[in-house]
């Protein structure tokens, strides 16, 4: 694999990308407009509370069906992206945030309704062929033939990228070696493990030595070891000067791999920066308090960045210094009866993510939102989340809350 020159400039530059699916249906819009309009995230806290309540009342399935088939669903509402050459960029977001749509627009597989994008210096609409020659896409669905061996898959892709028979053979062997698949090269891809198949899939995308590599949720469904191996591959690509644009719903993955991270929530970019920059956007630490009773929980939950009604836990932002923690404890529990136990965490990207995506509707990670999602949490996760940790319970609650806005 020959290294690409790391020139100055941008590998990906997108401005104001918008995309909506489906046709408008006036009848349904009239009925559900108020409740479901949350797709844009432009309403205030009250509106989103309504949307959540409506979503839960209607049930997830019904809500999604109505969104998908009967009316226009906005997937992306004006996103801007700038990815310097040779860097790794992560587009982070929950299911249905619009990540795949963004990738498909940049990879020329679908067109945006509005906005422009240039990839590897070419316009994705007017210079589609040039873009296609410079990129590769590894999607969520494996794009290898199960009934061909690893080697046959790669040789076919190499032939399709315009290599001669001999070159295709050489290139396939090279890639099999790079991706540690040589031993399995003559086995049908259908017999590969999930991790091996994903590596083969990625290798198949690299036969043409692309400048920009799009990876749509590359590690979803992989075990920890395979995930680590795939991360090594991504780092290797980056070291060779390839620009990598990946989508993920795993914060750790973005943290580990990406030079820059953009957080996408319901079609909007809610934050962009390095992992460290994003972490400093919320307070550096979080003080988790286990409370004595419901009254204390109800009093403190509105100001918490993290809360769980089942365990009566609230997490409060703090800079982590002894002085501030002491002051904070005195302030929230002046009579020294409400707080049973506390733990101090440094903020993870999960906290950032939850704070950012919770507050997206109002532009603040604030008080009204927290109350809404508390009620969502208790009503939806009561039975299901008995074994879940506090963090996942909150995550589930916020996910449920977004249900009506899903695409």
């Amino acid at each position: 694999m020959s290294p690409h020159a790391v020139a100055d400039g941008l590998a990906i530059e997108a401005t104001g990308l918008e995309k909506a699916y489906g046709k408008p249906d006036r009848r349904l819009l009239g009925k559900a407009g108020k409740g479901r309009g949350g797709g844009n995230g432009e309403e205030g806290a009250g509106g989103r509370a309504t949307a959540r309540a409506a979503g839960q009342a209607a049930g997830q399935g019904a809500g999604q069906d109505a969104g998908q088939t009967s009316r226009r669903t906005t997937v992306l509402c004006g996103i801007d992206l700038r990815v310097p050459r040779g860097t790794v960029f992560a587009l982070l977001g929950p299911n249905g945030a619009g990540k795949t749509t963004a990738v498909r627009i940049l990879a020329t597989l679908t067109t945006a309704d509005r906005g422009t994008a240039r990839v590897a210096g070419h316009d994705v609409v007017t210079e589609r062929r040039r873009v296609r020659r410079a990129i590769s896409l590894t999607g969520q669905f494996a794009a290898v033939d199960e009934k061909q061996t690893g080697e046959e898959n790669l040789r076919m892709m190499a032939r399709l990228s315009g290599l001669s028979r001999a070159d295709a053979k050489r290139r396939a062997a090279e890639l099999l070696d790079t991706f540690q698949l040589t031993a399995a090269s003559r086995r049908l891809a259908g017999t590969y493990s999930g991790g091996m198949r994903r590596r083969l899939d990625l290798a198949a995308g690299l036969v043409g030595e692309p400048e920009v590599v799009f990876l749509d949720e590359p590690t979803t469904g992989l075990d920890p070891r395979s995930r680590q191996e795939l991360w090594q591959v991504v780092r290797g690509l980056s070291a060779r000067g390839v620009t990598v644009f990946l989508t993920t719903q795993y914060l750790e993955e973005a943290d580990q791999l990406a030079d820059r991270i953009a957080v996408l929530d319901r079609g909007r970019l809610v934050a962009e920066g390095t992992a460290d920059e994003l972490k400093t956007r919320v307070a550096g630490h979080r003080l988790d308090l286990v409370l004595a009773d419901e009254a204390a929980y109800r009093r403190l939950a509105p100001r918490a960045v993290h809360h769980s009604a089942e365990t009566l836990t609230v997490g409060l932002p703090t800079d982590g210094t002894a002085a501030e923690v002491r002051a904070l404890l005195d302030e929230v529990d002046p009579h020294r009866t409400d707080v049973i136990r506390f733990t101090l965490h440094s903020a993870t990207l999960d906290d950032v993510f939850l704070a950012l995506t919770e507050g997206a509707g109002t532009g603040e990670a604030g008080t009204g939102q927290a109350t809404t999602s508390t009620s969502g949490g208790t009503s939806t996760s009561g039975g299901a989340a008995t074994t879940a940790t506090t963090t996942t319970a909150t995550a589930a609650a916020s996910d449920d809350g977004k249900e009506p806005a899903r695409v």
Partner: protein
Amino acid sequence: MSELLAHSTALAGRGLRLSRRNVDAVITAMLLPVILMLLFVYFFGGAIDTGTRYVTYVVPGVLILCAGFGSSTTAVSVSDDMKGGIIDRFRSLDIGGAPVLAGHVAASVVRNLISTTLVLGVAFLIGFRPDTSPGAALAAAGVLIAFITAVSWLSAVAGLLARTPEAAGGFTFFVMFLPYPSSAFVPIDTMPSWLHGFAEHQPVTPVIESLRGLLLGQSVGSAPWIALGWCAGLLVVSLALSGVLFRRRAA
């Protein structure tokens, strides 16, 4: 153009490898026509008066049946492709629908030629004796290949239309059905008169008449030209449809 050819060749190789490994479907496509031929010859053949030995009469019809059975494999594999992620991969390599479908069609033609050979071999064993010249045999092969190609493209279209591989398999039933109301298995004049119009003017009849005439050294008149006309027409329609459908499905 040379790029299109290179892509199609690579994808035809893929199609052949995939069929070779899809053993049960291929065996079905190859054995069923043989079984049907034996069934027709030994069960019904005695009761059908065609003026010749029945096996001699029925072979062209069985060859057409082969195309029908093969077509279901083609439709299913196209539909399978559309379901998975491989089409996006191809498109991101700037490979359009034409070479992808051409690959499937080429593989389908090769599969069909193998099953045709098998049918002819078994037919020969049970008493089929063609009376033909090299030129006529070549012409018969030409007509058959044209028909197989047209039906394969049509099946590829069915594969694009169907939302699931199962539905794609069902789509091709009508291709398998088409030989029955034709002169494939019984002479048309034994059918009720209201069926004559359809049976005489549907695409399968001129193909069968050409094959029969060319293989048995009889005069064929304009049948081969009508057959080729039908095949060309089907091919043009299928090509146009597949272009439109591929763009719509893949977008």
